[in-house]
């Protein structure tokens, strides 16, 4: 196959990646967009395979088949509620591949005594470091989200100093690799140090902040891909890498803005730290919290004309989305106007709630974004908060010192009645009490999210 044809195919693949991301700008075109992206990848891979009709062709094919099987099983089996950790895991695999690719081509060239231009070596070092950090960082993120590792931020004294030192050592090892490439042990040392760094970078970050980390790591792995492209002079790597890099950075920014926290604050586990040591808030709740039975709550719903549902992380944990859909349908069949208000960082991933509600067959045009939903709460009879906490905490407006100070929130407290479904009075991710639970117009419906909603539906049917 001629080089020109190969490069043309790579160009077509790049264009398909752009169309993929363009398609994602609307739910109507998103499915086709994703397929175009997959087609682009298929083209790029197929043409590369055809180009390399060589000994290890079977090895490659075996690898692709094995990888496809594993990936497909994961993708089909994973429940929607576990999406955040799935993305983290896949991201880790990507990082691992980069790490191994750089290693394989480096070892190969050294063992053959081939030429080792500085450009190549710099890229090997950079790809190795970013790959190792991404691999281990993503695995820790996966562990935290899956509950294999503690969700809490693990912070110890001098952590940042240790991380800085490790970072410095990796860079020095990288430089050494460039200057003294003859010794393959250099790459092993570099990978080892960067792996430790990857773990240590992520453990101080709390579970709910993982999406920021994943987006950032994803952006790094994109940039690592682009760097590889610079070395190989391969445009499809550069383009796809830049697209991914941009996407990760934009998502990170969006999340930070939606929490009114700086990236540094997220990455150094400051939010998490505050969370660990915060007050239980007894003096706020004492004697003011009104717990209600499903029947009492059903009475309130029976009188309502307009209901806004505000889902949060708890809905994902208890898999309550289908129950919520049934409740919404029941209310609508009685002529109640039902709307869903989704905060940009509700749950454990940007867009997490949207996916869950879509799974429960709730049409996407019924979901309102924060800016759209907030003016409506004043005309709302019942705001049903299910498993959300921080994103409806009025302290964000009133306490300029707290960990969520200035974070834009959903103004559920403006509604006539607020019904909060959760298991206890324990705090959300930010670790601070929520005065909303003690407000005059709030009723608490304690219990597991799914069960509570099912009880509510049953009670409502009695009316």
């Amino acid at each position, binding site marked *: 196959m001629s080089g020109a044809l190969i490069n043309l195919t790579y160009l077509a693949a790049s264009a398909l990646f*752009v169309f993929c*991301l*363009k398609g*994602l*700008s609307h*739910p*109507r075109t998103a*499915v086709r967009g*994703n397929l175009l*992206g997959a087609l682009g990848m298929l083209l790029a*891979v197929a043409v*590369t395979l055809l180009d390399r009709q*060589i000994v*290890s062709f079977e*090895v*490659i094919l*075996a*690898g692709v088949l094995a990888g496809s099987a*594993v990936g497909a099983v994961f*993708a089909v089996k*994973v429940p929607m509620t576990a*999406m955040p950790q*799935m993305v983290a895991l*896949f991201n880790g*695999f*990507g990082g691992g*591949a*980069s790490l*191994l*690719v750089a*290693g*394989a*081509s480096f070892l*190969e060239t050294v*063992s053959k005594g081939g030429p080792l231009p500085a450009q190549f070596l710099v890229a090997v070092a950079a790809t190795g470091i970013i790959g190792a950090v991404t691999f281990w960082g993503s695995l820790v993120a996966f562990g935290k989200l899956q509950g294999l590792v503690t969700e809490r931020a693990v912070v110890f004294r001098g952590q940042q100093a240790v991380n800085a030192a490790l970072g410095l050592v990796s860079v020095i090892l990288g430089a050494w690799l460039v200057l003294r490439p003859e010794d393959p042990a250099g790459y092993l040392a570099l990978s080892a140090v960067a792996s430790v760094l990857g773990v240590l970078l992520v453990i101080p970050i709390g579970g709910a902040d993982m999406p920021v980390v*994943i987006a950032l790591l994803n952006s790094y792995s*994109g940039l*690592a891909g*682009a760097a590889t*492209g610079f070395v*190989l002079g*391969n*445009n*499809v*790597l550069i*383009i*796809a*890498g830049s*697209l*991914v890099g*941009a*996407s990760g950075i934009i998502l990170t920014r969006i999340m930070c803005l939606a929490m009114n926290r700086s990236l540094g604050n997220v990455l150094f586990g400051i939010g998490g730290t505050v969370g660990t040591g915060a007050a239980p808030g007894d003096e706020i709740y004492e004697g003011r919290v009104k717990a209600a039975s499903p029947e009492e709550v059903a009475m309130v719903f029976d009188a309502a004309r307009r209901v806004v549902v505000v889902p949060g992380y708890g809905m994902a944990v208890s898999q309550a989305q289908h129950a919520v859909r049934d409740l919404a349908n029941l209310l609508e069949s009685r002529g109640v106007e039902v709307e869903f208000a989704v905060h940009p960082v509700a749950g454990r991933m940007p*867009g997490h709630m*949207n*996916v869950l509600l*879509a799974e429960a*067959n709730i*049409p996407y*045009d019924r*979901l309102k974004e924060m800016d759209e939903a907030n003016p409506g709460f004043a005309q709302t009879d019942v705001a049903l908060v299910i498993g959300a906490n921080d994103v409806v905490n009025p302290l964000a407006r009133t306490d300029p010192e707290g960990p969520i100070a200035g974070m834009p929130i959903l103004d559920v407290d403006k509604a006539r009645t607020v019904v909060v479904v959760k298991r206890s009075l324990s705090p959300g991710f930010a670790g601070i009490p929520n005065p909303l639970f003690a407000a005059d117009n709030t009723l608490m419906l304690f219990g597991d999210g799914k069960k509570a909603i099912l009880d509510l539906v049953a009670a409502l049917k009695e009316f």
Partner: protein
Amino acid sequence: MEGLIASLTVFVLAIFVGFEVITKVPPTLHTPLMSGSNAISGITLVGALLSAGHQHSLLATVLGFVAVVFATVNVVGGFLVTHRMLGMFRKKEDR
């Protein structure tokens, strides 16, 4: 040097395209965006193939094989899971 600047040109343009296109993705689709762009980052697979494709020592072959498996998991899993998610998004009329 010429080659580097040509690559840089492509990089700069691609970053522009990326920013313009991705800022248009609505919050509803941020999870699919994350998993989809993660799948695209599996383009390192091509890098893997390009370097795994040479004559090989056993070690490099093994590393290359594992790299290909990892990258394929990322790509296939990523696009499939995104497809599954997107298939669930429905407009009112479709119900």
